[in-house]
């Protein structure tokens, strides 16, 4: 019942995040989409850990680890964004993806 609903919600969020990460041009929006992907996986973990009752501590512990990873990912992403802004005055992914000269 609720498990299926929450799992499908997390899959939908994951898909939205994936599309955003690939197709959006502004790097800050891309970062938000990547966060969405990681956190939808967190939602799935929380949901599934509920089904094991008190044995599900391991899953909740894993969520904390994923949160740490997401935080460090954002800090690296923002450092990259600063570098982009220095070079081109805007944080547009398209500007940087053409490597050919």
């Amino acid at each position: 019942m609720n498990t299926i609903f929450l799992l499908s919600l997390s899959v939908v969020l994951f898909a939205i995040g994936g599309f955003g990460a690939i197709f959006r041009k502004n790097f800050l929006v891309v970062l938000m989409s990547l966060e969405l992907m990681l956190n939808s996986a967190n939602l799935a973990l929380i949901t599934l850990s509920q089904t094991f009752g008190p044995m599900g501590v391991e899953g909740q512990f894993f969520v904390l680890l994923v949160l740490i990873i997401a935080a460090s990912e954002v800090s690296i992403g923002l450092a990259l964004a600063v570098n982009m802004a220095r070079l081109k005055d805007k944080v547009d992914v398209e500007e940087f993806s053409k490597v050919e000269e």
Partner: protein
Amino acid sequence: MNFVKDIYLIQPELVLSIGVLVSLLVDIVSTKSTKFLVPIFSLIALSITAFFVLTNFYNEGEAFKMLSITSLSRAFDIAILLGAAITTLLAWDREGEHHFLVLSATLGAMVLVKSISFISFILSLELFSFAVIGQIALSKDLAGTGAALKFFILSVIASSFIILGAALLYGIFGTFYFPKIFLETSFKPIFQAKPLFFIISFILIFVGLAFKISAVPFHFWTPDVFRGAHSSVAGFIATVSKASAFGFLVNFLYIIFGNVPYLWGEILIWLGAITMLVGNLAALGENDIKRMLGYSTIAHAGYILVAFGIGTDTSIGAAIFYLIVYTLMTLGAFAVVNSIGENNSSLENYKGLSKNNGIQAFLLLIFMVSLAGIPPTAGFVGKFYLFSEVIKSGEYALAIWAFLNGVISAFYYIRPVFYAYGREPKYEVKSALNPAIMLAFIVGFVGILYLGLAPSALLDFISSAFTH
């Protein structure tokens, strides 16, 4: 209780993690005139770790319910440490942070190879990929930032695929610990319990790993990132990243999916066959040597994937041998690129190289001949063992397919050599030859010729990992 025993098992990793921390200190202490101390310290840390790996080669066991230390994983460690040491030589003049990042990425790779729990797997994977992103982004020009951006976005997407896959597997079995999953799958056929979850999670995790290996549908990032990154970083991604992902693949496929071998054997063989063709065909039309080497790593990943798909002990041994040979020759080729100059990677600059830069032209010849797999070099021996494993398993069509791919690859490997010896120089190329690059050249050259003429010592050593 078993704490001391577990610590004893992971000595090399502990030594390396101390090295990581101390290298930061060395970086802070060293001034402009003593900057060379950082890479020297980094080499010392890597060689002490290698010493511990070799002395503990036959100590097997499980540590902290997270890492499974086997001789096989130690063999992967040797390939990883070799790659890290040579890339340190190539990056001799870079900032001190670079060497810190190389050491942390190496630590991540070594832990990744031994992970038997999703917890240690995800953490070491992120340690590795974040350190690599840092290495790419240290070249702060347009190309370097673009490459870092691409690698960053795609590696985070890949790891979120892996995390979602791990979450679904957790939903079936209630654990992140691989051996327990193996136990559960051996009791009741999983295809009765929750087949859809199981297959989806396999696909999700495999997509994430395929990105690391740059297997076919997820290979498109490789040439772009290689073009923008410093040649030492490109070499690091090409060798260490592959070695660690393949090392983890052994744990992942043999433990979690050990009871359903036919699910993955065929998939890996098909994927490898397509990967080698795509890599080789795309490399044919490439006019930039860094991008060409990027496609060539895709092709080599295909050969190794096929060996994993066959999945016997001897074929995995052949794959490890090939991985070590591949590390030597790819990093040798990147050392040539490095000494010709980071911004001179267009093949136009390689025309008439033998006139002014005789040493580089000769070494380019050796490394390209080895990459193409032509006899007196180690590349030939590696391919020979790999293909004979394919034939032994009865897949004759696959062996012919792989051989034809080797023939195609010879065309694009010989082209820079032909340019270097057969054409008049078009541009004046100022090459740099510092002692570090000379050392990298010597290691690559001697290693390739030695393994090409007398491979049995290393082969016996690798097979002792299975039979001791």
